[in-house]
Structure formats: structure tokens, C-alpha cells
């Protein structure tokens, strides 16, 4: 089920009605989540069930002896490796054991990370095991964040799961519903109105290859905003869905294109993944006693690059993703080294360098493979054009297109102005039937509009 579809709206309406009218709130959301995931198909459902049962069983063993963590992590990441990376890994090993197109089980990267973080947190004393299997299943399966995050920690989500199943009243009563509907509307607007409208231009430029540097820059610029609006739109809907049911999910984006360094950008982009990587990959690597004190900085830098390389690999099984991640890591090291040894440039230089670097490296993320990315980038920097996609005609010599590109940036700035405590307070103040029906009504109208083209959420494929 996709959040940007009318049938999901019907599904949500039924679940919400049941949630409001019946006393078994946790059970209702668990049942809804199972139905939601079952729509993904039998294979994905069986896999999810197996992963839940294995992790549920192992959590008790992990509490008794932390060494049990390793087998369960091997099993979890073994599933991930098999279902997501088998063709790539076999290819790297020079084997053609696995060939053909692989269909990645829905949300596997996200729920494996969430469950692994949970088990690691148990060993660190930051989480408690779930005695109840339904509660544990709900922790993994909640349809508001199952497919593409945000990746939730036990300390944020666990107590909320217990509260739901224990029948405790919702925080702030039902007043969060208006805010939740507002976020759902914002997310759908980002997805349907912006990301899906940009998608055909990006698809054409990356498929046919840019004809000249202008087309290449346009493609990269538009893709940056497409993926931002697509994924942050999804995350807004996820957080909004949580609020409708009285669950607080983590924010995943904080207007990242305002960042003035790559580190900051990653603190604002897919924040729950960044935190996961920081806590469970970077810090263990950086704190490992591998070298003497005087080389600790180098170890930190190495850990940073390796973490971001793994971040790239997490996004996709291909060398282009690995290069993309590695470049992010190298840019972070470069930024930190600069800050350490050289004077800081003006803010606008930092912003331009950060945004420009992110745009250019996104080509590795979007291109089909390394070769295509190299061709694209050579065109980007004026070394001839191998493709046939030109800048579309706008009847004004490109002025409308330039205006449109800057309008996207302006929308980003506008979003930053919207996401404030003041807005939240205002929404709470004016929350009521009128506001909720207004948000729900606009949402339904947007969903009623048939799609000219099928554009699934980009992160659903990860």
C-alpha cells in the first residue's frame, strides 16, 4: 500500500474509526499493520514474520548473555545481504551464482536496522525486551513507519507501544490529530504536487543523458529536490500518521539544503539513519583501540569515511552507491580538516560548496551505474555531451526554468519557516473539527486526482 493512494486513505479511515470506537487500540493498530504489510505479498510477509519471531526469541537470550547478540545480528544482516545484496556480492566475488532482477522485500533495510538497534540497545542497557510478542511485533510493524522509516529506537517508541496496549489515554487527548493531518497533507503535497511533477524531467535527463552542461545541471538540481520532496514527504506523512494515532515518531528531515557543511547536511537529512550510523557504526569504529593516541584523529577520519561508505552501500547494491557514500565521507573529513586548520570562509561560500557538492555527488546516486555517472559528470563540467536530453523549451529562453529552480529553493526556505514551535502552537490552538476536516478534505481531493504516471516513493526500493 502506498500512502499517496486513495485506497490507503480508505484503509486509514477504517483503522481510525476502529481506533476511536473500540478499546483495544494496540491490537487494532497491530492488525492494521499486518493487513498493511500483507498487501506487499506472501514472500515479504513470511520473511517479516520470520524476522520478528527470530528477533523476539533472541532478545531474551541477549538479555542473559550479550554474546547472543552476534548470531542474531548475523541472521538479520544475513537476510539483508541475501535479499538485497546477493547479486552484487556474488558479482564482486566473481561468481554468477545469483543473476537477474531481485525484488527487495518491502522495508527490509529499515526494519532490520530498527530491530538490530533494539538488540544492541538491550546489551547497552538502553532498552528492555518485550515480553509480549504482539507488542514486539507492533514495534517492528507499525504501518506508519514500517516501509521507509523513520528508524525508531526503543527508548522513543517502546514506552509508546506499551502505553497503547495498556489502554492509557493518548498524550494531549486527540489534539494531535489536527497536527497529524496537517503533516500528512504537507507530505502528500510534497510528493504529489512537487516530487511527482519533477520526476518526468529527471527521468528523461538521466535516461537519455544530458546534451550539454546546462541540461546536466538542471537534471542534478531537479533530482536533488525530487528526492528531498519525495522522501521528506513520505516522512512527514509517517510522522503525521503517528500523531493521528497518538504516537510520536522521530523527525527525519530538517530542511537539509540550508546546511553550510556536509556534516550539517547529514545531520538534517535522513536524521534517524544518520543517528543509527553514528551510534552503531561510527562511534564503535572511532572508539576502537586500534592505534596510538597521536593517530586517533586519523582513525576518526577513517571511521567517518567507512561509515559513509556503508551508508552508500545501504542505499543500494552498486558501486555507484559506494562511491557516492565514500565521497560524502571524504567531504566530511575535508570539512573537518578545513575547520581545524584553515580559516572559515563566508557562509555563502560554505553553502554554495555544500549544496554544489551534494548536487554533483547525487549523480552517482541517481545514475544507473558508475559508467553512466562518469558520462553524466563529464557533461556537467563541460567535457562534451554524450546524451540527447536538452533543457526543455519554456518559450522565454530558459528564464521560466531558472525561476522554477529557484522557486524550489524558496519553497525549502518557506518550509523552514513553517516548521516552528509557533506553527505547532497555532495548530493546537485552532485544532478542531473544522481544521481537521479542512486538512482531510484537501488530502482527499489531492488523492482523487488520478496520477498521470506511476511514481512510487523512491525510498520504498531501499
Amino acid at each position, binding site marked *: 500500500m*502506498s500512502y499517496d*493512494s*486513495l*485506497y490507503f486513505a480508505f484503509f486509514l479511515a477504517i483503522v481510525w474509526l476502529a481506533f476511536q470506537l473500540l478499546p483495544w487500540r494496540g491490537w487494532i493498530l497491530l492488525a492494521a499493520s499486518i493487513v498493511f504489510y500483507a498487501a506487499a505479498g506472501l514472500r515479504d510477509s513470511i520473511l517479516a514474520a520470520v524476522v520478528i519471531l527470530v528477533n523476539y526469541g533472541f532478545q531474551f537470550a541477549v538479555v542473559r548473555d550479550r554474546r547472543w547478540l552476534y548470531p542474531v545480528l548475523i541472521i538479520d544482516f544475513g537476510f539483508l545481504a541475501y535479499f538485497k545484496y546477493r547479486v552484487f556480492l556474488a558479482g564482486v566475488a566473481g561468481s554468477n551464482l545469483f543473476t537477474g532482477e531481485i525484488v527487495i522485500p518491502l522495508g527490509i533495510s529499515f526494519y532490520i536496522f530498527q530491530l538490530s538497534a533494539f538488540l544492541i540497545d538491550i546489551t547497552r542497557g538502553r532498552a528492555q525486551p518485550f515480553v509480549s510478542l504482539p507488542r514486539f511485533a507492533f514495534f517492528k510493524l507499525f504501518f506508519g513507519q514500517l516501509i521507509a522509516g523513520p528508524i525508531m529506537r526503543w527508548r522513543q517508541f517502546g514506552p509508546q507501544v506499551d502505553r497503547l496496549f495498556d489502554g492509557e489515554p493518548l498524550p494531549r487527548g486527540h489534539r494531535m490529530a489536527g497536527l497529524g493531518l496537517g503533516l500528512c497533507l504537507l507530505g502528500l503535497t510534497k510528493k*504529489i*504536487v512537487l516530487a*511527482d*511533477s*519533477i520526476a*518526468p524531467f529527471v*527521468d*528523461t535527463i538521466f*535516461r537519455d543523458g544530458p546534451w550539454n552542461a546546462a541540461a546536466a545541471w538542471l537534471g542534478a538540481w531537479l533530482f536533488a529536490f525530487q528526492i528531498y520532496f519525495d522522501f521528506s514527504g513520505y516522512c512527514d506523512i509517517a510522522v503525521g500518521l503517528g500523531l493521528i494515532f497518538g504516537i510520536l515518531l522521530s523527525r527525519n528531515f530538517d530542511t537539509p539544503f540550508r546546511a553550510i557543511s556536509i556534516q550539517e547536511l547529514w545531520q538534517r537529512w535522513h536524521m534517524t539513519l544518520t543517528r543509527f550510523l553514528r551510534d552503531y557504526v561510527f562511534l564503535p569504529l572511532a572508539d576502537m583501540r586500534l592505534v596510538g593516541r597521536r593517530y586517533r584523529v586519523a582513525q576518526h577520519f577513517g571511521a567517518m569515511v567507512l561509515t559513509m561508505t556503508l551508508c552508500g552501500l545501504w542505499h543500494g547494491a552498486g558501486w555507484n552507491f559506494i562511491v557516492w557514500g565514500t565521497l560524502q565521507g571524504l567531504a566530511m573529513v575535508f570539512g573537518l580538516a578545513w575547520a581545524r586548520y584553515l580559516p572559515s570562509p563566508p557562509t555563502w561560500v560554505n553553502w554554495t560548496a555544500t549544496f554544489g557538492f551534494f548536487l554533483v555527488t547525487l549523480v552517482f546516486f541517481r545514475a544507473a551505474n558508475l559508467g553512466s555517472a562518469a558520462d553524466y559528470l563529464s557533461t556537467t563540467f563541460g567535457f562534451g555531451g554524450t546524451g540527447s536530453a536538452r533543457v526543455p523549451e*519554456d518559450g522565454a529562453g530558459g528564464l*521560466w526554468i531558472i525561476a*522554477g529552480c529557484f522557486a524550489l529553493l524558496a519553497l525549502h526556505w518557506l518550509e523552514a519557516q513553517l516548521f516552528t514551535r509557533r506553527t505547532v502552537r497555532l495548530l493546537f490552538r485552532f485544532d*478542531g*473539527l*473544522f*481544521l*481537521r*476536516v*479542512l*486538512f*482531510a*478534505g*484537501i488530502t*482527499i*481531493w*489531492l488523492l*482523487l*486526482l*488520478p*496520477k*498521470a*504516471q*506511476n511514481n*512510487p516513493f523512491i525510498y520504498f526500493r531501499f
Partner: protein
Amino acid sequence: MWRLAFRRLGALLAGLVAATLVIELGFQLILATPLRWVLPVPQIALYGPDADTGYRHRANVSGLWLTEHRVFLRTSNLGLRDRDRDIVHGNAPRAIVIGDSFIEALQVDWPETAVAIAERILEHDIPGAEVVNLGLSGARPAVHVARLQSQGLALTPDVAVVVLTIDQLLSPLATDDSEFTGYRRAADGKFHLSYGFRSSPGYRFRTSLGGRIFYWLLDHSQVMRVINDRKNVGLLAEWSQPPTRQTFDTAWHCPADALDSEIALWVDGKPAVARALVDAFIRDLAVIGRSNRMPITIATRGIEARCPALAAKRAALIDAIRTRLETAGLRFIDLDARVLARVGRNGVAPLHGFGADLGLGHLNVEGNRVFGEILAEVIGAALPQRRAACQSLRSG
């Protein structure tokens, strides 16, 4: 308690009205600005009821067409996918081109349609020559005939070209008249045009006052278009949407049994129902042509011309079709062969589709240009025949 209930009901209704107004204003704003070339809007609703064909374009309707390619459309004053023109024409010749969505070409701007291109080419040689587009999405053989009889002859054309997708004669829908004109077997055992749709509830509603209000709303409200679009695709359409885009296969397919059903029909006369349908179609067109002294050309498409392995079969089929049509006094053009001769085997697929769907779907701008040039040739060749017919009439 009642007061609270009324307050809640009022808030609910006010919220719904406000949401509808916000969406209406939003779409109107998008449509009124260059944002319409990028942002989502509801698609134009072009068609209305017609007693002769079941449905047709409504006159002077404008809006965005989104399927395959985003185009701003406006139907003509005569209710055609055409430019505005007078129903009466002067001394210069006028040709009409009848066909389905292939000729209607909603996916490109009007000047880029094959018919408009043919008109420009002919006008270069014969000042004032006109080529009128009578293409209509989903039109089948019976609709072609009915449209020629009613809207076509009203334009007093000198020449008519009927572009026929060949497999339509084998489609079960050819004998279905529940939504638009079809061929039904009459008491004499032959197929005749049938208008069963006229008694359908849908047609009756569309021609009633309620229908007129509905179309007025469609033309003036974007929200109404959203509802209409959703009605057309179905409430749960996204549920069955394919997860991935269809990809363009550069190799065309030449299965061994291709053209077998067409050969069975045109050479062996099987199945009998389709044979009778073909007879009726040819008979009706021939009668119209004879009674109006108007050369009618049947231009067939959809007979795969790129497969060398099918060459012999194809030649036999084309020969059979040509013989049947020419015996009845109709002209025949093999459009697929003409396109192949112009662009070669590898050049046919790129004439279809746009952007990521290049190679799939209807003709793109280049495809319309190629077909426009062919249409100009076909019409140009038919015009002297018309002049000869007129001269013989005068001398007689």
C-alpha cells in the same frame, strides 16, 4: 445537545466547503500560470453525447491533456479536434480524415497533428485547401461510418480518408452498440448501423438538463474535472497499477502466427460474423462514396510490415484487402508499408511515445510529421479523381 450537534455539522460542512474551495482555487491558479506545464491538474473532459455516434467532442472546450504528453487543447467551433473553420467552404478542395485516437492525436499540439501537417503541405500546392480532422478516440468501424455520414458529409468534403486500425474489424466491440454506434445484425440477416446507446440511462442523462448542467460544471470547475477523471479511471485504480514502468523493446515482435486471424478474415472469410461486418462496413462506405461522388480512401494500419518472415503472408493479406476495397469502388492505402518506406525498420518505433515512454503508445511529434506527409500524398492523389468525377458529371 442539539446545539452541539448542529455546531459540529456546521464545522464539518464548512471544512468540506473550504477544502473544496482551496483545491478549486489552487488548480485554477495552476492553470492560469505557466505552472500548468509542470504541476498536476485535472485532465480536460472533451466528449459529450451525440445521437449519431454516441459521443463526440464538445465545441470550444479547452484545458490540459495529460495522457502520454502534456498538451493544452481546444476543440474547434464545430466540435472537432481541429482548428476553427466555417462549415461551408469555398472553391478550394476540402478533405476529411476519419479515424481513432491515432488521427485525433490529443498528445501533440494541434499544429503538430498529422492532419494539420497534411493541410499545410496541401495548402502550399493548392491555396485554401483544407484537411479536417475527424479523429475520435476509441472510434470503431461503425462509428467511422456514422461519423462520415453525419459530421463528415456536413462539411461537404471533396475527399475522405478513413484510417482504419485493422484489428478493429475483429473486435467484439465492433458489434456492441450499448455506448456508441455499432453494427448489429438486422432482420435481413445483414449488419447495419445500430444505435442502442440512445436508450441507455447514461446517454439519456447526458442529453437531459442534468447532463447539460454536468457538462457546464465540467467546463468551469476543476474540482468537477477531478471527480470526472476519478470516475473514468475507477476509485481504486492505483491498486492495480503496475509497480514498474513498461519498457520500450527495441526489437519488434514477429510471432509465426501473426496476421493469421486477419488472413482468415480477408482471404477465407472467417469467422462469418466478422466477414459480415466487413461486408457491411465496405458496403456502407461505398454507398456514401457513390452517392456523394466522393473518393473514399481506406488507409489501413496495424499490419506489421517490419517482419521479413511474414512478407509472403502480408502480401497475400494486402492483396486480398486491396481487391475487396477496390472492387467496391474504394481506394486502398497500406499506411504501414508507406511508413516503413520512409523511415526504415528501425525508424518506426521511435515515432511513438514521449520521454521515458519513447517507442510506446501514440505518435509523437515526429511520428505525426511522417504520417502527415503520407496523408498529404494520399489526399493529393485522390483530389484529381474527384475533379475527374465532377468533370464527367458536368459533361454528362
